């Protein structure tokens, strides 16, 4: 599978995760989001950017529990809960936000 972004063809796996993490850009994120039926807003970008920063620092995508706690600390308690995250990313922050943020596919879950 692949996606087209700005005239370039980028390889994705069958679930839509980028194969080469270095292909990621904001433009690419928007394109993945479109495929997921997620309309990116400021609030979405806050989470996506947070995930990218977290990944750069720790080399893993955080567990949802850890993500909500850390988001609450950074962006305020009204955003640090899974209800808020699921409203932004209906199929879950692990499945959708990580994909849009260009992180590796979470392997812990089936």
């Amino acid at each position, binding site marked *: 599978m692949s996606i087209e972004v700005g005239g370039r063809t980028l390889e994705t796996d069958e679930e839509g995760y980028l194969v080469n993490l270095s292909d990621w850009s904001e433009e690419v994120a928007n394109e993945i989001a479109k495929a997921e039926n997620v309309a990116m807003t400021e609030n979405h970008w806050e989470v996506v950017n947070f995930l990218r920063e977290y990944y750069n620092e720790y080399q893993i995508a955080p567990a949802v529990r850890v993500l909500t706690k850390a988001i609450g600390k950074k962006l305020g308690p009204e955003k640090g809960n899974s209800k808020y995250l699921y409203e932004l990313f209906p199929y879950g922050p692990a499945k959708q936000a990580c994909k849009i943020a260009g992180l590796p596919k979470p*392997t*812990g*879950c*089936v």
Partner: protein
Amino acid sequence: MKFGLLINEGPYNHQAADTAYKFARAALAKGHEIRRVFFYNDGVNNATRLTEPPQDDRHIVNRWSKLAEEGGIDLVVCVAAGLRRGLVEDNLAPGFRISGLGQLVEAGIEADRLVVFGD
């Protein structure tokens, strides 16, 4: 008593899988329960149905399948470790199932004893 077993090595390369199997059989013979056998690291290779050892040696994979069938033993292969090594549903031997690492932690919680077999 309820036992959980963790197997971290593949078949044939290391004795761990043999020792674990003999342990499981002995525990069952003594009336204990095997709550779960969890296959992790290269241990996931115990679950590939493509395995064909020479006929004059034990068939480690079939032996596990038979144990699962006879004793209703829950044989769980770690999905993450399996994906790393090309072990997926398509080449999974009978009696095994693929699931998350949480199944190992759960076995540690629910079993009275967890025994680790590895290298």
